[in-house]
Structures are given as structure tokens and as C-alpha cells.
């Protein structure tokens, strides 16, 4: 059986001979939620950009359902770290742009409108659909970014530190929203993060990256906690604490940040 998404021996060098990533291989199953965690500068965003097709690998390749992907496309929708909403379009307009482009030939005008509103509802932003990005909060912008990505009906959803710029309470709300949607729609998700709790809460597997240069996958942790996961009751669960400790050990004992060391 061919794997759903295969990252196959990826090397990436921005300048000749200096590798950012070296020998990264990872196979992801359909419907799986995978987090990639590591210190800043370890090349995890580069890895995500390679999967997205925004950056080309120096060696190796990415295969989605057996076919190599080497350019960006709506089948691998990205939720960008800084939301990347177009400020001259409304919340609705931003999502509609994606819907019109992806479903322009397959859905009628009314269907595209309903599809847009449906995805805004998923992230609880339907009531703010007429507002411009400048008029809503950071968390709301990120919700719209998620709605835009989901509305493309991607085969893989790529989240690039989606909650990094948000305050802790807003981040928790958004994590719950993402968890709920991923459970409901069965999305295949790759999320870049540097937040251990976030990784444990949301992921089926946590991929831990070693420090660069020539960063690679150091360890992969299966998180077999039952779903839906509730952040409050989990703080007492030993499985949660074990998973959390293992990631912390990896990050702060074995692969301390070179600058912080």
C-alpha cells in the first residue's frame, strides 16, 4: 500500500554545502495529526515550506498519494504564522477568494457562498464576515486563516506555528477549535510548533527535530491519549504527563538550544 504523505530523504541547503535539513524522512497516514517540534532555527518551518511546495528540497522529495509534489497547491493548504489575510478584502472575501479559485468550475455561485459561510461557521467567525482584517483581533484573524485553508478542502492541512503570536487564553480557545474540527472532518494535519503542551494536546504523533545545522528527526513520540482530549482533566493524567516529560527531556536535556546552552 502506498503511504498517504511521504517525506522521503529530504536535504535542504540554502548555500552550497551548508545543510539546514539533512536526511528527513517521515510517513504520515490519512487523518493523522502530526506535530513537528524543535527549537527555533532548527529548520522546521523550512520542512513545512518544502511540503507546501513553497521551497524546493535540495535532495529527496515529497509524495502525496504516491505522486511527487514540487509546487504549491490548494491540496496542501497552509495556515500561515502571521495569518496572511489580504487586508483589502473582508473576512468573507478572503475565504471566498480561495473558494472561488478552488471550486470555481465545480460549484455554482450559490454553493460557493454557502461553502464559504459554512467554513466561517466552523471557526465561529460567520457573524464577523463583513469585517476587514484590521477590524478584528489576532485570534479572529487566525480563525479566518484556518477557515480559508479548510475551505480549500486540502488533502493535508499545514499549520505553521498557527498560534505562536497569540496570548495564552486565545491560543487555548483556538487549539480547542482546531481539535474539534480535525476530529469532525478527519483532516490530515502537519503542525509546526514550539509549544510542548500544544503538541501533546493535539497530536497523534510528535516529531522532535534536532538542532541545526543539518537538523533531522531525533525522535518520534506516539501520543495515544483518548480523544476528545480535555485540557483540564488531562493535567492529572499520567499518560499526558509522561508524553510531556519525554518531549521536554528531548528539547532541554539532549538537544538544548545552542544559544541558550
Amino acid at each position, binding site marked *: 500500500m502506498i503511504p498517504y504523505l511521504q517525506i522521503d530523504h529530504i536535504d535542504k541547503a540554502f548555500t552550497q554545502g551548508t545543510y539546514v535539513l539533512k536526511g528527513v524522512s517521515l510517513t504520515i497516514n490519512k487523518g493523522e495529526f502530526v506535530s513537528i517540534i524543535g527549537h527555533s532555527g532548527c529548520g522546521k518551518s523550512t520542512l513545512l515550506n518544502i511540503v507546501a*511546495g*513553497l521551497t524546493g528540497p535540495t535532495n529527496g522529495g515529497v509524495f502525496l498519494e504516491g505522486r511527487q509534489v514540487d509546487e504549491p*497547491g490548494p491540496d496542501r493548504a497552509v495556515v*500561515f504564522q502571521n495569518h496572511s489575510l*489580504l*487586508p483589502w478584502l473582508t473576512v468573507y472575501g478572503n475565504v471566498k477568494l480561495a473558494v472561488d*479559485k478552488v471550486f470555481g468550475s465545480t460549484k455554482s455561485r450559490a454553493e460557493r457562498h454557502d461553502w464559504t459561510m459554512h467554513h466561517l461557521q466552523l471557526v465561529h467567525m460567520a457573524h464577523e464576515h463583513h469585517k*476587514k*482584517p484590521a477590524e478584528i483581533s489576532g485570534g479572529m484573524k487566525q480563525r479566518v486563516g484556518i477557515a480559508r485553508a479548510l475551505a480549500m478542502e486540502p488533502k493535508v492541512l499545514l499549520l505553521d506555528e498557527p498560534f505562536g503570536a497569540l496570548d495564552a487564553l486565545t491560543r487555548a480557545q483556538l487549539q480547542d477549535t482546531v481539535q474539534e474540527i480535525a476530529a469532525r472532518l478527519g483532516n490530515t494535519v502537519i503542525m509546526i510548533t514550539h509549544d510542548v503542551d500544544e503538541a501533546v494536546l493535539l497530536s497523534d504523533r510528535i516529531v522532535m527535530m534536532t538542532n541545526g545545522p543539518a537538523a533531522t528527526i531525533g525522535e518520534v513520540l506516539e501520543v495515544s491519549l483518548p480523544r476528545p482530549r480535555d485540557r483540564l482533566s488531562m493535567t492529572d493524567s499520567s499518560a499526558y504527563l509522561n508524553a510531556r516529560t519525554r518531549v521536554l527531556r528531548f528539547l532541554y536535556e539532549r538537544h538544548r538550544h545552542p544559544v541558550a546552552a
Partner: protein
Amino acid sequence: MSQSAIAARPAPEQIAPAEGSAAVVQLGVPRRSFLRRHILPALPGIAARTIPPLLGLALALGVWELLCMGPDASMPGPSKVWAEAKELVLDPWFVYGPQDIGLGWRLLTSLQRVAVGFSIATVMGIALGTIVGSSTWAMRALDPLFQVLRTVPPLAWLPIALAAFRDSHPAAMFVIFITAIWPIIINTAVGIRNIPQDYRNVALVLRLNHFEYFAKIMVPAAAPYIFTGLRIGVGLAWLGIVAAEMLTGGVGIGFFIWDAWNSSRLSDIIVALIYIGVVGFALDRIVAMLGHYATRGTAKG
């Protein structure tokens, strides 16, 4: 927003006493309260904004009058200008003959030339700016050319334009075009080069084609820069038209000044200068307002 909210709130208070009291009383109440509620509180604000410019104007006129008071002053003071040229101010739309028309008509003629020249400059400037902004090779090829040509003063183009078009009317419009186009090209190019990588990434993920990228990402993202270029361009165009018309003749405001100078009507020249200033200011404001309207919300959020 907040003003209308204040305006809406007193309504129930006005109705409530009316139920108990006679209808005769009620008629007077809203009118007096409207004055008290809306006109009187606004007065200090209006005064603070209108009195300083009026004082400044009065001061400038006073200094001017003082400087030109002597019997052998070479320039007319404001009172003399008013006495000699008030007809030009009071009636800008008279027509006494083919060359003897009001300043309003002359300004319209000049504005028409600016409109044609500036419109062509806008279209070509944005097109060229887009090419230079999106292609490194086009930038390397054309940017040095633009940088040199943009420093050529408008009037230096006039002889070439006259030779090429063999007529003063299109030559004047060409001078406007060539004056206004450089800031439009340069600002558009800068705007396009400054489109954030985020927006490019969105376009890449969505697989927007070239036309969609141009219409949906490039133009709106660069719009604030483009409007800055247009605003500088319209100012330069207005500077250029007056100079060009002084040399080419015809019925424009520039030629009027030259004609008045040749017949020693200094007061007419001063009135024309004021008109030119006011129109130039209005053009600048109009383009700025269009820009403000067109780029609402484009500020980063």
C-alpha cells in the same frame, strides 16, 4: 457614529414630558434644544479650526499691503489688486470675445489638457511600473533610463514635443504626460516590489494565474504606493501646464499670465496666481481623497 448615537438618545426624553403637558409647549422645545445640543457645542471646535487660518491670511494680506504702500512701489498691494482685477474674481465665466474670457474658462482649458496628459501618464505609468517592479531584468534595463529622464525639467521637453507633434495643443499635453509619468512609474514599481512574501505565498498556494495575481494581489497591495505616485504626478502636471502654456499660447491659464505680463496687468497676474494655487491644492486633495477611499483597510492589520 457617536454623534448620531447622541442625537438618537434624547428623543424619548422629549416625547415623555409631551404626554403630560400641552401640545403648544412641545413645538418650541425641539427647535431650541436642537440649537443647544448640536450647534452650540460644535462652535468652539469650528472656531478653533477656522480662526487660525483666517488670522494667518489676514496677517499675510496686511504685510503685503504694508510692503506695497509706498507711492513708487513696483507691485500692487491687495487693495489695488482688488480695485483693478475684481471683475476677474467676481465673474470667472464671462465671454467677451475669443481671447477675452473669464478665468474659469481658462482654468477649464488647462484642466482639460492636464486631464488628458495625466490620464495617459496614469495608465502607462502603472503599466510600466508593474513591469519594472515585477521583473528584475526589466528593472535593470529601464531603471537607469527612468532615473535620468525624470530629472529633465518639463519645459526642456517642449521643443521636442513641438517638433514631433507640429502643434502646440498636443505638445502641451505631451509635456504634462512626460512630467507626471516618472513618479507614477517609480512609486508603482516600489509598491510592487514591496508586496509582502505572505501575499505571494497565498497566491502560490491558491495557484492564482498571472492575471488573477495582477488584479487581486498586485494592484490592491500596491495601491497606496500608486496613489502616492499619482499625487506627486498631478502636482507636477499642474506645475508643467502653466509653464508650457506660457510658451505655447492659446487660451489656458498659463498663457493668460504671459499675456497679462506683456500688457503690464500685474493685478491680473496676481489673481491668476491665486486661482492656480487653489486649483492645484484642489487637485492634490482630490487625488488624496480618491487614494484614501480606494485603499481603505489596506493599512496593515
